[in-house]
């Protein structure tokens, strides 16, 4: 009886392990081309509402980073570092698309395809939009 229970439990655990989606923890940061901290929102898999809701920001409250555990249901996951404008420690307008982020902030967003096993620190360098001073 005990042996049967143990076998069932082992099988259950093995099934759960095989079926689970792998994850990896990353630390995100962003600077501009002068290597100064750039306030940004990190968007995973183009889910802009979730990024805003979960407060996935870097350099908004100060010079900080964002640590996030990302699930990998497929080989690659796309993240986008979207620039935002901050006044008095608050984001003035939460972007809903790459175009909006770009148009409003004057900086160019950066999409990046991450894979399992990529370096933990993901460092983004955002350029100004051409024509922006």
């Amino acid at each position, binding site marked *: 009886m005990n042996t049967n229970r143990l076998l069932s439990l082992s099988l259950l655990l093995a099934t759960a392990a095989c079926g689970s989606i792998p994850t990896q923890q990353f630390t995100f940061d962003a600077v501009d*081309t*002068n290597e100064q901290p750039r306030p940004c929102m990190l968007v995973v898999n183009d889910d802009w509402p979730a990024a805003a809701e979960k407060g996935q920001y870097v350099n908004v409250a100060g010079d900080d980073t964002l640590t996030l555990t990302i699930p990998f249901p497929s080989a690659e996951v796309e993240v986008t570092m979207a620039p935002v404008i901050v006044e008095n420690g608050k984001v003035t307008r939460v972007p809903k698309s790459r175009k909006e982020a770009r148009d409003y902030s004057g900086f160019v967003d950066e999409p990046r395809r991450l*894979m399992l096993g990529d*370096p933990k*620190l993901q*460092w983004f*360098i*955002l350029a100004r939009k051409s024509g922006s001073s």
Partner: protein
Amino acid sequence: MRRNHLSILLPLLALCACNSTSFVRVVSVNPPDASVYINGVRVGAGDSRPQKFDFGNNKRVYVQATHPDYQPELEWFDLEKMEHMVDTDTNVKLTLRAR
């Protein structure tokens, strides 16, 4: 006895050397005063310098270069690409485009 030890140790050392996942390549940037980052860590500014590419903990390594007057550049390297670069004695070259 000593010979026995050597016969075990030598193949072990050879195996470690073959499994090395760390490579050194010269990284050059244009303009030469652009800053260079490897895996998000600033490794300096300046023209051609040898840099270490370590695949021990990561499957890929990324190199970035930035300069205030240029568009930043990023390039990814996986183990296969790095081994090919070593085989063909190719170095890493990042050329930034002016804004």
